[in-house]
């Protein structure tokens, strides 16, 4: 059995995959990777299907040890860097790690979330069809701590050699809005707000508040947001929902959010932009921009096309010859006296 042993990691490090679906009617949050695009990329680089379970690191690095066997490893997201036994792995490349290898992930320097993936994927227990950790309920396990060991296979350790891979196509899908523009759709409870509330959001700039996490991002704007005092009977919510809780901020629900809620929802971040919002660190600014439903669907389709083409954009990496590998090869036939 191959394991990943945690030597060091930040407090919000956890196993994530696409999330837990089919149980929202029982109050089960989906959880899942905050940046499913970077997760897909990390998985493609090690030959996995896009949404296999990986380790999600949040605003911090980590150090890990591979035990029991070899694995192909990669990191993607937030500009984070992977080092194997002190040797940096080039961005958008995977590399082979061996039994006893120390893997170091440096903090994401451009974003928030980084994904550390392994060939064969993380094989922690599956709960209701998913390995995603939902911290609040403990479903899928708890955030990782030093000393934890994650299984990386189903019992058959691989002690051979993995051929590293690289991405040859553009790293991220082409994105129409520039910089930190986040597209939104109005509703569903627009009539619970003052008439000018939506236009106050559209084009407005906000700062990501430090009190942001996997459940919700809190946005602080120049002018406090007003909401109607109408009480709403609880109904369904979804990641991306924008709520105005009444303390002047805007709350954007994220992957760990609850399934139902009573605050009025003024708008929704479009599905194609939620991972982008997730990668904007606290203290940085975003601008909201209203788009049409058709534009939102078109953006979602564009992302899907990019993801489908991912596996075709993965090539064997061109690497420096590995001395260990070379010594294991028989490059000449016959016998020499060693002098020539």
């Amino acid at each position, binding site marked *: 059995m191959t394991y990943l042993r945690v030597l060091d990691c930040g407090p919000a490090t956890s196993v994530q995959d696409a999330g837990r679906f089919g149980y929202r009617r029982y109050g089960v949050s989906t959880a899942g990777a905050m940046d499913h695009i970077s997760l897909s990329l990390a998985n493609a680089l090690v030959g996995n299907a896009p949404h296999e379970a990986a380790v999600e690191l949040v605003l911090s690095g980590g150090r890990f040890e591979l035990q029991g066997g070899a694995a192909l490893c990669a990191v993607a997201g937030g500009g984070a860097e992977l080092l194997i036994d002190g040797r940096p792995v080039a961005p958008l490349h995977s590399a082979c790690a061996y039994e006893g290898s120390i893997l170091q992930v440096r903090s994401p320097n451009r974003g928030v979330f980084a994904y550390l993936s392994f060939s064969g994927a993380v094989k922690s227990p599956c709960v209701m069809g998913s390995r995603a950790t939902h911290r609040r309920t403990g479903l899928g396990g708890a955030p990782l701590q030093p000393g934890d060991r994650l299984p990386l296979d189903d019992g058959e350790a691989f002690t051979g050699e993995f051929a590293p891979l690289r991405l040859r196509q553009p790293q991220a899908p082409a994105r129409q809005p520039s910089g930190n523009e986040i597209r939104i759709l109005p509703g569903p409870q627009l009539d619970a707000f003052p008439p000018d509330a939506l236009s106050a959001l559209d084009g407005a700039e906000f700062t990501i508040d430090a009190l942001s996490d996997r459940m919700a991002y809190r946005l602080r704007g120049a002018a406090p947001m007003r909401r109607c005092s109408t009480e709403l009977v609880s109904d369904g919510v979804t990641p991306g929902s924008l709520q105005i809780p009444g303390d002047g901020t805007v709350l954007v629900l994220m992957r760990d959010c609850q399934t139902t809620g009573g605050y009025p929802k003024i708008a929704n971040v479009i599905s194609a932009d939620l991972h982008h919002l997730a990668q904007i660190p606290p203290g940085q600014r975003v601008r909201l921009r209203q788009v049409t*439903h058709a534009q939102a669907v078109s953006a979602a389709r564009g992302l899907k096309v990019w993801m489908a083409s991912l596996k075709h954009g993965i090539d064997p990496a061109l690497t420096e010859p590995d001395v260990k590998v070379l010594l294991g090869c028989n490059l000449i036939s016959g016998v020499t006296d060693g002098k020539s």
Partner: protein
Amino acid sequence: MSPPRNRSDRAAEFYEPRILDCGDAALSVDFGNFIDPQVNARVMALDAALSARSIPGVVEAVPSYRALMVHVDPCRVDFDELRHTLLKLASSSGQVGLRRQRWVVPVVYGGAFGEDLEVLATRHGLSNTQLIDLHSAPVYRVYMVGFMPGFSYLGGMDARLRTPRRTQPRPSAPASSISIGGSQSAIGSLPAPSGWHLIGRTPVRPFMPSRTPQFLFQPGDEIVFDPIAERRWNALDAAAAAGETVAQPAS
């Protein structure tokens, strides 16, 4: 938008449902801002009708008090066709949903099991016994399961027990707490913060990942509370921990 209405209202029954977009990955079929058994019955009926069909791009549906949220894959679903189907089903399904299950749920009321019961009783000018009688008399309806896995929101509580939520929520209420918030009652599941009044606990675990079924109560189920003596707690709690439902199915 009009404020929520709590009593059965003829208008609620004939409210024209609306389809509201919730971003590009969900739609809500909205039956109005009501807490009303007829409105909830319409949600359940639509939920049943929808689940009987297999519509490409529909991921799952989540019923709540007064709306059905339909989560979709925007790349697969035909939005126009889905909206049309939902409206058609919403108008034609009436209130005949799948009749689910009635459960008898044992509860230890008050004392260490329901630390707000005595204060609440005094507040309403009742004795503890009177409050317990009033709370355990009705047949409740599960309107929605949300907030936490298995947390069941109930309708049908006696109006005399209505109490606004606490101004200071508790950081953690015990697992399986029976509580009152506004005009609703609830069966809690996992320990969680709570702004509701805790009046008792049930040994039943509405959610248990290691048990089959993992979830006991579904929207549309009926609940009858059975007050039990504290001395029965340990045995029932142990049975529930071992995976027994403990809640008794009733016809």
